[in-house]
């Protein structure tokens, strides 16, 4: 089966995120109220062939650990669609 996997990789809490800060400022300048902290990371969408959902999720997690996220600075989440 083919699964769509949505991976989110975001900078660790506590780590300065200048891009997130810049976005928060820009949103405020554009007049959007109520914006608190903003963090900017990467969204990765994968098409993944796997026997079942659990296998797909395990594979994607392994991909994050090895390549997609930097363990020094980033956290990730994996969501398998369908």
């Amino acid at each position: 089966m083919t699964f769509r996997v949505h991976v989110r990789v975001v900078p660790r809490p506590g780590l300065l995120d200048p891009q997130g800060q810049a976005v928060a400022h820009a949103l405020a300048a554009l007049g959007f109220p109520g914006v608190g902290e903003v963090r900017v990371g990467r969204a990765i969408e994968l098409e993944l062939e796997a026997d079942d959902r659990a296998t797909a999720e395990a594979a994607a997690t392994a991909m994050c650990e090895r390549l997609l996220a930097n363990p020094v600075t980033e956290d990730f989440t994996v969501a398998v669609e369908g």
Partner: protein
Amino acid sequence: MTIRVAVIRFPGSNCESETLEAARRAGATAELLDYRATSLGGADVVILPGGFSYGDYLRSGAIARFAPVMQAVRAHAEAGGGVLGICNGFQVLCEAHLLPGALLHNAGQRFVARPVDVRIERTSTICTGLFRPGAVVRIPQAHGEGRFVADEATLDALERDNQVVLRYVPVPGSDLPHNPNGSARDIAGICNPAGNVVGFMPHPERLAEATLGDTIGQTFFASLVGAPTSGAPA
């Protein structure tokens, strides 16, 4: 015996030629080494040059870290052999965990290309031996991802163990921020505890011949050649 230097070319490396030349000018026997190689071919020192390995896609250095040659680089480093990463090479070394920390997008969100003033904080490394400790040198730098980060404990350990090799310092009169990318503690380059694995962001190979007005960058390469063939200098 002359020192043998291998300059690795990853797909997307773009500073390998001038790095090779600087090493040769310093008296080393230097050759390019393809990223697919599985051995360093007897090199004493391996240099990971600047550029955009794999386009810097995903994160700079993240994909190059898995290039076949990196296993040999790791083994060489662990055996005490000299490994120098310049700019993208530094990024690869951090991604490969041969050096601690990570290099993130510049705090200003823009690529910054300009000379920087850095202080030589440690001279007992493979490539800074010929500098006077504390010397301040102005070297070209150019990158989008050079903000060095690590957790506080790691930063403290780096300071304690004298692993900071280059640090951005203010010079009087300059109207630019001395730290161009927001690096923690103004760190421009670090090494492992033994000083045989070094990574930094500035590009000494770009200021290494007289026609360009200054040869200060050549001192890094001269230091490399003056270093013992393996293991850390005393």
